[in-house]
């Protein structure tokens, strides 16, 4: 059955969806704009070889939807949006492809900013900047003195996990705990790096790409490695999923032996029904968009000229926001997702109301 795009736009609150193709450079893109009440869209970019436009459109709309909420939870002046590009990021990107993308971004006249992501490196961003100024994460001075966006996201997630550990396990530190990290590219890599620096922490990793495993194992041979298919059977305290391409299914959720589940992608689980399975198994589930806003804090500081030195301190906000949401969820007997959406929505509505006064 064909995808009812308008229906999906309605259910994900997206108001603008554009498709753009430039065959001369093999650029095919879908841009979703969800909400601009808080400010211009800070679009997350994903490049993958999408076989179906329907699937890619769904991905774009969902990413945009969650991006709105993660900005709102952090009270940062960005709207939610996304850019989905077709192709294998290792093969399709070149100067012309990226500059064409920059030209396309320019057409949004400042309503949309593009930023580095797992699929867009600093080098790629430089090409895009030749065509558009609407880029964050491109300020070389800021980035040189600061941290990579993926690291900011990872540290934010770690702060959120610390809050979850406090809430769920009643502990102020993570020593003695076992962490599973599924997917160790980009954000996952920095999460593992951070965990391995802590004392007395067990880390179990997997990734579909073995080279990433080897890169970590060559440095830290004692890290436990399992094949991707084995990861859900690992007994742990915190399961962190950092893979874009394998959200957790109901069957996988029923296999999990963890106390806390979260991750770097906006929604770690395949469908909302799985939250019930997790609840029944007393697994605390925190959607990724609640924790993964570290890069937004980074970019906000870049645009507002505050400098990179304050970023690390501001990432602590994620600890407090997460802890508040967890407590609220318990008090109101709701899921974390429900209270997070409601808190974010409330914030957006308040800002919208204030803007009317202008």
């Amino acid at each position, binding site marked *: 059955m064909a995808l009812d795009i308008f229906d999906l736009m309605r259910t994900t609150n997206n108001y603008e969806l554009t498709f753009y193709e430039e065959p001369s450079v093999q650029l095919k893109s879908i841009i979703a704009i969800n909400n601009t009440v808080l400010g211009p869209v800070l679009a997350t970019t994903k490049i993958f070889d999408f076989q179906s436009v329907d699937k890619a459109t769904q991905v774009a709309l969902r990413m945009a939807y969650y991006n709105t909420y993660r900005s709102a939870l952090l009270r940062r002046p960005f709207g939610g949006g996304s850019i989905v590009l077709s192709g294998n990021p290792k093969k399709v990107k070149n100067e012309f492809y990226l500059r064409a993308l920059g030209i396309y971004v320019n057409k949004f006249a400042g309503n949309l900013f593009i930023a580095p992501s797992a699929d867009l490196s600093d080098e790629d961003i430089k090409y895009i900047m030749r065509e558009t100024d609407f880029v964050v994460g491109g300020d070389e001075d800021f980035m040189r003195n600061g941290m990579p966006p993926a690291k900011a996201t990872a540290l934010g997630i770690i702060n959120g996990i610390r809050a979850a550990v406090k809430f769920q396990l009643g502990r102020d530190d993570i020593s003695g705990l076992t962490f599973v990290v599924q997917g160790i590219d980009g954000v996952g890599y920095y999460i593992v790096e951070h965990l391995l620096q802590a004392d007395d922490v067990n880390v179990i990793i997997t990734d*579909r790409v*073995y*080279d990433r495993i*080897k890169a970590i194992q060559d440095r830290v*041979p004692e890290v436990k490695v399992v094949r991707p298919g084995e990861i859900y059977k690992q007994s742990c305290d915190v399961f962190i999923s950092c893979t874009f391409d394998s959200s957790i299914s109901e069957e996988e959720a*029923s*296999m999990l032996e963890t106390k806390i589940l979260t991750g770097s992608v906006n929604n770690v689980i395949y469908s909302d029904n799985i939250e019930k399975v997790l609840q029944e198994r007393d697994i605390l589930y925190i959607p990724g968009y609640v924790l993964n806003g570290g890069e937004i804090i980074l970019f906000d500081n870049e645009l507002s000229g505050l400098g990179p030195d304050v970023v690390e301190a501001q990432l602590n906000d994620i600890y407090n926001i997460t802890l508040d949401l967890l407590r609220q969820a318990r008090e109101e007997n709701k899921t974390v997702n429900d209270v997070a959406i409601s808190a974010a929505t409330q914030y957006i509505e308040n800002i919208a109301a204030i803007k009317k006064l202008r």
Partner: protein
Amino acid sequence: MAKNKKKYKILAINPGSTSTKIAWFEDEEEVFEKNISHSSRVLDRFKTIWDQYSFRKDEVIRTLEEAGFDLSELDAVVGRGGLIRPIPSGVYVVDEQMIQDARIGYQGPHASNLGCVIAYSIAWEHDIPAYIVDPPAVDDFEPLARISGQAKIPRTSLIHALNIFATARKFASDQKKKFEDLNLIVAHLGGGITVAALRGGRAINVNNGIEEGPFTPERSGNLPVLKLIDMAFSGKYTHQEMRKMVVGKGGLVSYFGTNSAMEVENMVKAGSERHRLVFEAMAYQVAEEIGARSTNLKGKVDGIIITGGLAHSQMFTDWIKERVEHIAPVYIYPGAREMEALAHGALRVLRGEEPAKRYGVHTPKVGIFYWDNIEAYVQAINYIEDYFRAKGYVFRKEDSNLELLYANCEGDDERGRRELERLVDQEVDMIIAIGSPASALAAQFLRTYDIPLIFTGLYSKEILAGVDWKKANNLYASLYGVPVEEQFENAVLRIKPDVKKIGVTYKIGELQSNIEHDRVREFCAKHGIECFSYDVQTHEDFEDAVKYFSDEKVQWVYLGSDSVIATATAKQLETITSKFPTQCALEDTVCHGGMIAYHISWKELCEQSADFAVRLLNGMEIKKAIVSPQKRYITANHDTASRFGLADKIAQIKGVKLL
């Protein structure tokens, strides 16, 4: 027309110092081979050999993609193993421990250390197994061979294992003999020379390829020790220079400045006496080494095999031959068959012809857990053991590669728990539980342990109440229960389609018996047959059962698979089987006087369980965790059938086996 059998697709990777050789095999056939050369300019960029990993892997993948191969079609990847810790010869599953040892270069840095990690990496990304075959670190030394004569310097094995074993296997196959049955001396002649004595498929002694034995094109081999010590302490040479003098700049290089045996041979042919002297001396020393190996085999040598690149030189092999052919016939197998050896090793494992070994010192342990000493369970153990043997496993012997631990519940739950505890303490890698009662107990007791459990002869998966089969990743089962409807339709209803009253024995408190009983009652109700049940707790209850069935005028009796029927002797069963025609759940019951059974083969079922175990031991994929043999058999007891005048009718049933 015969159905096309699936061909196994195997990628073999053999990293050398300045090249990486790859080959794509489809079963035994090599469909592609390429030697990817790496310039020293590129390799020099890397600080260590291990750092060359990504570069070489990318080259391998690029080459294969350019040649049009799809890596996702592979069944396995096999790499040349490196200088890892000493291990017996064979095929090994690449695992994390092996990677760790290859990373540090357990026995030194060597390009072959990259073989296992590149294979592992490609296999990882396609979710298939990775193996190594006979790495240079193979050490099958018999204890006597380890004594050097200086207590501080034990002898260690370093051997061209891949080519030596592959050539020996090829020779055995050419001679139509079993490789393991032959006593062989194999001399690999290449840049390095190793001469191995093979007994029972193991290299019980070999000259260490780096520092012992004959000199080679570039290695010095054995040297007068005191003169060497004097030289080392003369102050004229550094440590590195001394080492290089022995390995790299020894042998032909030290005499003529070349490591090309062909060049030297050409000089001999051109009349150079000096070249002839040295070149023949090299053959002389190889012959000497072969003579030494013959003493390791106490003179019982089935053949001397000369292989490797230098075996192409007839001049050289003739010199060896004339000195050793009095020991045993000499066979020349020129060249090296390393790629073939790698692929064929992996193929043997994929086909289940040989078990892949686990790296490290671990001999896998399999617990066999059974309810009692009844005939069917003892038979099951025999079938399982036979299957292991057929797959190359050796147990209860000095050279065992598998340990089997037996645990008998002796019909008692409490004892069964103690036995399971014992198996857990002994760190078994998996447990095969035989029969429904043992399976149920093991499933309950081991639910918090991460030990794979294989249920053999489980009546149905419902026996294991509480087991979440979706979540259970370590549970495997072979089921014996043929649906009751199928049993009746293929036996009773064929013989007496109008049967109106059936008696059934069962044992209250035994779960599988209760499930079976319910199914018989459901069947009868559905077909308008009256069903009369009698609980038999012991064999003494048979008489009362018969009385009850007689009073109710039942026409047939169904003898189930409960422990009372399963353990009854023919004499005990006769109480029932002499009075009523009987449909039996178990083949064994027919052997003990029951009339007819429609059943699966107990042997096939046990083999399926053993196959689960072999696959787990080899890290191979198990597609279905619950299986049941598809083939059905009808077995009938002729004497019993005659007693009821049914022998002729039963004999007409197609495919019936009459006892």
